């Protein structure tokens, strides 16, 4: 359950704050970016089968997370110490249960995410160096 909260927390921090919110901000401004990202965060929970009342709550939660993220534009304001705590609470309160083997799956997914970030960073740096004109 902790592995699930950490994996989903990292995904949400990068995808909804670092990716969507900052792209929307570039396109439409700071406040619209914050609101649109919160709206996207709320509506994506439809996929989990959540109802309208919960979506409204999630919209305001998205505003809170987005505003906190915007203070330093760092996902480390949200992950791993803040948002996974709430996620873990929700899963426990709703009585979600999983086989123990699921832990391995979520740890592997977390490793896949971190590996992808390291690889993307290295490939990006190499490509930039190759394209830089030599003196």
């Amino acid at each position: 359950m902790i592995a699930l909260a950490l994996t989903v927390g990292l995904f949400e921090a990068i995808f909804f704050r670092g990716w969507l919110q900052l792209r929307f901000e570039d396109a439409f401004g700071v406040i619209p970016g914050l609101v649109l990202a919160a709206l996207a965060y709320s509506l994506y929970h439809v996929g989990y089968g959540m109802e309208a009342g919960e979506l409204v709550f999630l919209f305001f939660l998205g505003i809170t997370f987005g505003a906190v993220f915007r203070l330093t534009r760092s996902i480390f304001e949200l992950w791993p110490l803040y948002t996974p705590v709430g996620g873990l609470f929700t899963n426990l309160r709703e009585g979600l249960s999983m086989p123990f083997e699921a832990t391995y799956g979520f740890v592997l997914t977390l490793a896949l995410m971190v590996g992808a970030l390291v690889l993307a960073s290295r490939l990006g740096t190499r490509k930039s160096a190759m394209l830089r004109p030599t003196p």
Partner: protein
Amino acid sequence: MSVSVKDQSEPQAAALARVLTGLRWMPSRDTLVALASYLLVVAGLYTAFQVFTTERVAANFLTFAPITLGLIGVAAPAFYTTIARRRPLEDLGITVRNLLPSLGLSLLLGWDTYRNTLATLEITSGRNPVP
């Protein structure tokens, strides 16, 4: 030429107000890619939980975790940012800049959330945070 304090502060205040309240309409390729990735994430989640459902454990897990969260949600934005846009991961908020203040605030908010949520939860027997 002397510049008064008022002359210096007014443009800053105007700039701040513009940043905070300013609406603009400058959608770019990045905006479209972000929207497309969002639709893919929603479709991935819907497929995992509404089509496969938790009854089909393997299909549900693979669609949800490695594919939707890992590949579409994290790897795709990261590779697009660094390879296609040649921008650092800092553009995704992944940065060690302000690391200590960020972690400090995170710890504070995490503790407050814990006090108001997990600490109040009665975990019944048979339900364990470690599955």
